[in-house]
Structure formats: C-alpha cells, structure tokens
C-alpha cells in the first residue's frame, strides 16, 4: 500500500496504463475509491472508461502500472479479485434462452452458492428487485428495464464487496433509471463499493465522488461540490463540456 491510500480504500490504482497498438487508451491513471462509496467515472466516448473498468475487473491486463481491488492485485490475484466483485456491462450478459430464475441460478452457482442458501438468495433477489412475477419468463423476452434489473440481480447474487457498473442505464427509461439508483444507494448503504460510468449528468450528480477522464487522462476528481467550485460551473454537465473543451484545446 502506498502512502496516499488507507485500508478503507477498495480500489487503489497507481500509474495504470493500457496501450492498444498505437493508441494509448488509459495513460497513467492514479485512483482511490473508498469503501462504501458510489464513485462516478465520467468522460466522452473513447476516453478510457470501459478500458479502466476492464483492467480493474481483470478482463484486460494493464500494459503498465498496478491496481488492487478489494485488497488483491488485479494481475497476480485476478481470480481472488473475481470472487469479490460484481460486474454489469451495458450488454447485460444475460442468457436470452434461460428464464429469469435460471439466469439467477446459473450466476449464483458459479459463485459457489448451492442448495438451500442458493434457493433463499434467489428468492430474496426476486423479491427485492420485483422480479418475482417474471421469474419464469425467458430473459430474451424482457424489456430493457427488466433486463437491467435482472442483470443487477445476477451481478450481486454473491453479495460482492465491489460492484462495477459500465453504463448500466444506457437505453433504459427514466422510471427504471430512478428505481435503479435507489437500489444502488441501498447496496452502498450495506457497505458495497460501487464504480459506475454514465453519460447521464443527472446520474453523475448522484455520485458521492466523480472522476473525469479525457483521452485516457484523469483531468478532475472530487465530490460534486468540489468539482463545481473548482471549475466555477453551476452543473456537472457544464463542467463536463468545459473540461472536454479544455482538454481538446490543449492538444491543438
């Protein structure tokens, strides 16, 4: 552990870098995310948000730098990391030809839940997320909002200490988005650390802390109030547009 971090940090990244051929997708990222925090990662398309998440989840090996997630190194202890995280991408990762309950059962089993414990956990998730009436419906026939709920249920079946959400609300209606954020806060209240990327600025303002990425660089980090004060703007959307303008201007 380095001096700037404490034991209450769930994610610690130091000089994280990812290069695809000529393209530097993420360039020297330093980041700490505290336990139980809802942390927003913002930035335009191609700024390196998804690549950052994928490196932290162990889906991609960093070109350089280190990161620990839930106390485990993402390159050397990837399997240990995987046991302790949940991951939900905008593609949801559901099996269309399995029912709601079957998707849950599959993901719960992979994380080692079995027998009565699995049964209880599935019943609990179905109830909490209002999925019970649709338990036997095939996932492929669900609408976007319901798929999102099921994906969240699958990603949290094993009560992970850390949850990665990569644009979880893309293509979902406002009512479902609001409900989704309620669950996010409930999860955070139980101590789950959450990293979320989004293009919706109203969602960004719900995060406790934010980081802005542009072309692989971290260009701002802090609470919503801190970021607003720092850039003399009245909304996160204005900050976003201003930062992007500055960063692109810097290149030209």
């Amino acid at each position, binding site marked *: 552990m380095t001096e700037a971090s404490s034991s209450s940090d769930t994610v610690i990244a130091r000089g994280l870098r990812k290069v695809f051929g000529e393209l530097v997708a993420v360039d020297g990222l330093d980041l700490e995310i505290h336990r139980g925090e809802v942390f927003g990662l913002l930035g335009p398309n191609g700024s390196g948000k998804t690549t950052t998440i994928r490196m932290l989840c162990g889906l991609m*090996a960093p070109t350089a730098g280190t990161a620990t997630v839930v106390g485990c190194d993402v390159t050397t202890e990837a399997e240990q990391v995987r046991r302790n995280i949940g991951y939900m991408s905008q593609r949801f990762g559901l099996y269309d030809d399995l029912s709601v309950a079957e998707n849950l059962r599959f993901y719960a089993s992979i994380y080692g839940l079995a027998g009565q414990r699995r049964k209880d956990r599935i019943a609990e998730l179905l109830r909490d997320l209002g999925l019970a009436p649709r338990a036997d419906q095939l996932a492929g026939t669900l609408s976007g909002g319901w798929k999102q709920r099921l994906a969240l249920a699958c990603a949290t079946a094993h009560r992970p200490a850390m949850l990665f959400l990569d644009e979880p609300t893309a293509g979902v209606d406002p009512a479902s988005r609001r409900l989704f954020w309620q669950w996010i806060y409930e999860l955070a209240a139980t101590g789950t650390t959450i990293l979320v990327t989004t293009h919706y600025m109203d969602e960004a303002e719900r995060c406790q802390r934010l980081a802005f990425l542009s072309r692989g660089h971290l260009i701002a980090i802090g609470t919503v109030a801190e970021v607003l004060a720092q850039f003399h703007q009245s909304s996160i959307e204005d900050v976003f547009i201003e930062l992007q303008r500055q960063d692109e201007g810097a290149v030209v």
Partner: protein
Amino acid sequence: MNIMPMLWKELVQLRRDRFTLALMLGIPAIQLALFGYAIQTEVRHLPTVVLDESRTPESRRLVETMRNTGNFDIIEHVRSRAEMADRIESGRANAGLVIPPEFMHDLKRGRTAQAQVVVDAADPLASSAALSGAVLTGRARADALMAGRSGAPPPLEIRVRPWYNPGLQSSVYIVPGIIGVILSLTLVLITSMSIVRERERGTLEQLIVTPIDKTSLMLGKIIPFLLIGYVQITVILLLGRLLFHVPILGSIPLLYVLSFAFIVASLAVGLLMSTLVRSQVQAMQLSFLFLLPNILLSGFMFPRQAMPPFAQWLSAALPLTYFLTILRGVLLKGIGLEHLWFESAVLAGFAVVLVTLSVLRFHKTIE
C-alpha cells in the same frame, strides 16, 4: 473445479433449442438415407448398344453372355459404327459391342475370333465396370468354347471370395463410415459455434469476470455434446441395421468405449476452432474447411491405398481416419481390441492433445 453450474446451464439451453436438437438427431437419419441409398459405387446395368455384323448363333450367344454379367443392358441393335458412335456421343449408351462379320468364320477355322467393346471412359467408375464385364464375357465364352472342343474342364480356375461383404454392397461399407462423418460434422460445428456465440452475445465477458475456471467452462461445454454424439451413433447403427442390413459382427460395448476418444477429439477440435475465430460465421466456415479433407482423405469415400504419399500423410493427421478403421473393423469384421489397439491409442492421443491445446489457448481475458 466445479463443472456443475456450466453443465446445468448448457443442458437447459440445449433442451430449449429444439431446432438444433432436431437437427443433430435428424441429420444422421437424413445423411444415412442419402449416402446409403444414393451413393452406389458398384456400377451395373450400363446402357449398351450392339452392332452385330456377324448375325450368327455364336454372335447372339456372345451378346447373351454379356447381358448375363449384369453389367450391361442391351438397349438397341444398331446398323452401323456411325449409329453406335451417335448413341455413345449423345449419352444414351455408355458402351457398344461390335461383332465383326468374320466372327463365326474365324471361330470355325480355329482362329482367334475377335469382338470389340467400345466404352465411354469419361466416368472411370462406369468404364471400369464395363471393362471388367467385357473381360468376364470373353473369358466365359472362351472357356465354354474350349470345353466344347476338347471335352476337358478348364485347366485353371481362380475363385474369388469377398469376405465381410459378400454382396459387395457399398451401403455395407459406407454406413459405418457415415457414423464417423456425421460425428465430425455435427460435433465440430456445434462446439466451434458455442463459445463464439457467448462471445457475440456478451455473455462470455460476463463469464470471464466470474471465478469459473477454464477447465470447468470447457468441460461444461463438451459433456452435453458427448451425450448427443452417443445418441447419434445409436440412431445410425439402428437405422443402418434396419434399412441397409449392415452387419454388426463385433462388440457394441467395445465400439461405444472406443468412440469416446473420437467424440472427445472432435469436440476439442471444435473448441480449438472457437478460440481462433471471432464470429459464428467464421466458425462455420472453418468447420467446413476442416470437414472437406475428412470426407475426401479419411478413407470414407476413396481408399487411402490409392492416395499419393502426401495425401496419405494428411490423412494420417485426421482422427476420422483411425475411427473409420475401428468402425469397419468392429462392425464388418468383428475384430476386437487386439487388432485395433494402435488406432485406439492414436485416437486417445489426439483427444488428450487437442483438449489440452484448447484449454491452453483459451484465455480468461477479452483482448
């Protein structure tokens, strides 16, 4: 390692995918009917025209002997060589028998009488049937004439006994081969597509962030198709027995045990392919690329003995080559492990190497 979650998921998906399931069980039946009924390599009843310029009892007897070989159907008596050429050129006849005017005369004078068979040799299989039929006809008549003259039996006779397939029916030879070809076709195709399908739908990415280990993932994918493979073998054996009366001389349990290595090797080939391709379309193309040498070089359609050395080496690199020897050996010859241990060992080697390779090639990352 816990393969149960993956295995359970694959079985539920398979049960729900009625189309694939029907295809996997329907393909053996359809292919069997196609290959068994349509592919007949023994050529009989070649349409034949006769130009009999001798018009004598002896020439008519020669025509009769020729007809009796069963290789020729006399469709027409023509009046000239030009007419005969016309029938063969137009494709109405494949062979023509010419008996010259001096045929009877030569016989009576004790000279060697000559007749000519013209063959359309564009199709080698058909022409070889015509050739052997013609030689047979000549020898049969010559023997009969000799015996008639001297009153003594022919001094030498070779009797050929076709063992294992006395009727020389190609279906008897082809049906055991179909088991191997169908298994290659369906198992390689279906497994090569299954992992790519998860990649395309985004579920592979989700699987990779879970703690599932590679071996469980691979085995969970393979085992359901192992069962399908056995169902296919059983379907083909039953239909082959009922429709084509294919003999089952050897031990069925032995055949099922030896099939295990071949099925696993085929599934592993599919898995290996799925680690090389990026889409289901590519997987399908690669499967067919793999299938072609299997059909052409394994000995399924053409005998390996006839192949040039280079093709024989290629053939030796195909698991199907060894499995065909096992299938035909057990079913048609009734032989056991004492004659098949080499093929069995090679297949087991293929299975181990291919499974290991595909597990090594598969990485739990998405680059």
